[in-house]
């Protein structure tokens, strides 16, 4: 049993034309027992930047609080919003600082650049980043998510299509993972704002 599978959960992010979507399940478990169906593992860092964290829930919470701290200071000192790629580097450095006693969490970063192009990045628990133009995945059903995303994804989707695609990719993967699921939430980020929807999913 890996520590990264203790609480269960997954996150996926996908890029469209001048939009990104990030989605996650809502299960919090203690090994096989489900404890909560409204766990939050996707967090809004600013108007156009989201962070999704999988893995051990206590580290998900701690990292989220820590990044709020760092981003707030950045915003006040710089007098401007942090860019997605800068935030990615901040996340990577923070994780690598704990190289020999890491946070057991694998983040996903999704945002819109200043020119409205999408930005996606996934990382392992030590902070090794992997940027992508199409989709990034993380969590206990990451392998299944790779499969569903690869199948359903097509480039340059608009916000509505993107929502449908990412939702189907997530739901299909959730159904094959016993420790992910129990609800799902999807955020779609466009230059005009953020739309958040919860999905009707199998509650098992």
């Amino acid at each position: 049993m890996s520590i990264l599978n203790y609480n269960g959960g997954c996150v996926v992010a996908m890029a469209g034309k001048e939009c990104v979507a990030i989605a996650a399940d809502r299960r919090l478990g203690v090994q096989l027992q489900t404890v909560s169906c409204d766990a939050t593992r996707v967090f809004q860092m600013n108007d156009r930047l989201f962070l999704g964290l999988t893995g051990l829930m206590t580290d998900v919470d701690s990292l989220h609080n820590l990044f709020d701290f760092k981003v707030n200071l950045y915003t006040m000192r710089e007098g401007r919003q942090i860019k997605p790629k800068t935030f990615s580097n901040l996340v990577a450095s923070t994780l690598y600082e704990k190289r020999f006693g890491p946070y057991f969490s694998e983040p996903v970063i999704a945002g819109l650049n200043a020119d409205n192009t999408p930005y996606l990045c996934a990382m392992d628990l030590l902070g090794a980043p992997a940027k992508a133009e199409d989709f990034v995945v993380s969590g206990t059903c990451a392998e299944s998510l790779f499969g569903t995303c690869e199948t359903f994804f097509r480039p340059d989707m608009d916000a509505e299509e993107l929502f449908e695609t990412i939702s189907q990719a997530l739901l299909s993967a959730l159904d094959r993972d016993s420790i992910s699921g129990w609800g799902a939430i999807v955020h779609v980020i466009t230059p005009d704002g953020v739309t958040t929807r919860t999905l009707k999913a199998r509650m098992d």
Partner: protein
Amino acid sequence: ERDEEEGACGEWRESLEMSRRYDSRTTIFSPEGRLYQVEYAMEAIGQAGSCVGVFCEEGVVLAAEKKVTSKLLEPSKTSEKVYVIDKHIVCAVAGITADANILINQARLSAQRYRLAYQEPVPVEYLLQLICDTKQGYTQFGGLRPFGVSFLFAGWDRHYGFQLYQSDPSGNYGGWKATAIGANSNAAQSILKSDYKDGLLLSDALQLATKVLSKTMDSTTLAVDKLDLTTLIKSKSDPSMIVAHSLNEEELEAVLQETGLAKPKPADEAS
């Protein structure tokens, strides 16, 4: 050379000879029980651009005079007078800007550390105490000079609602309904004393702060580029959120128009 050294402080004339022996170290009292370095720090602040703070039910208004030392200076992207400490606290600065930057940074760090530990915004007075404790430390040990900064802190917390505080280089602070720091702060304070009333609306507070500031400023007419007006209020769209808003040029013009302090248009009567 005595006259040059004293400047405008006539009352120090008698103790000038004595004070010379007690003013070079922060860590000793004078025979009269004064800390001269702290008082000299307050002198430095008396030369700085004025700041006025006015409290009302709807929120707090901070008005600051931006002293432009040279036309060649690039205008700063962030204000050199009013700073955001956290989402629910702003402060205005009078004094040595470099000193202020150190304390502002410390305040920001303290506010974020509190948020990280307790997952809620730092209470205003608690944060102020941390800063003032730092300032006090420089008056008692280390042999370092005190910070030449006074602050006006405006904030909101769930314990006491909106609050306005003033702090000085000694590390003392007090809560105020209306107060002023910087150049001509005494004059500003006496005007506030007579003109401030309980139950002001935000618009009234804006007008009062602007009017008082204009009376203490060197220039005869208040211009938009010399004024920094910031309000701290509950967000209209979401009353659970506090918003610090620095008025833009248009809004500043509107306030100046209302107070009758706008620069007179050519071939018009003066305000």
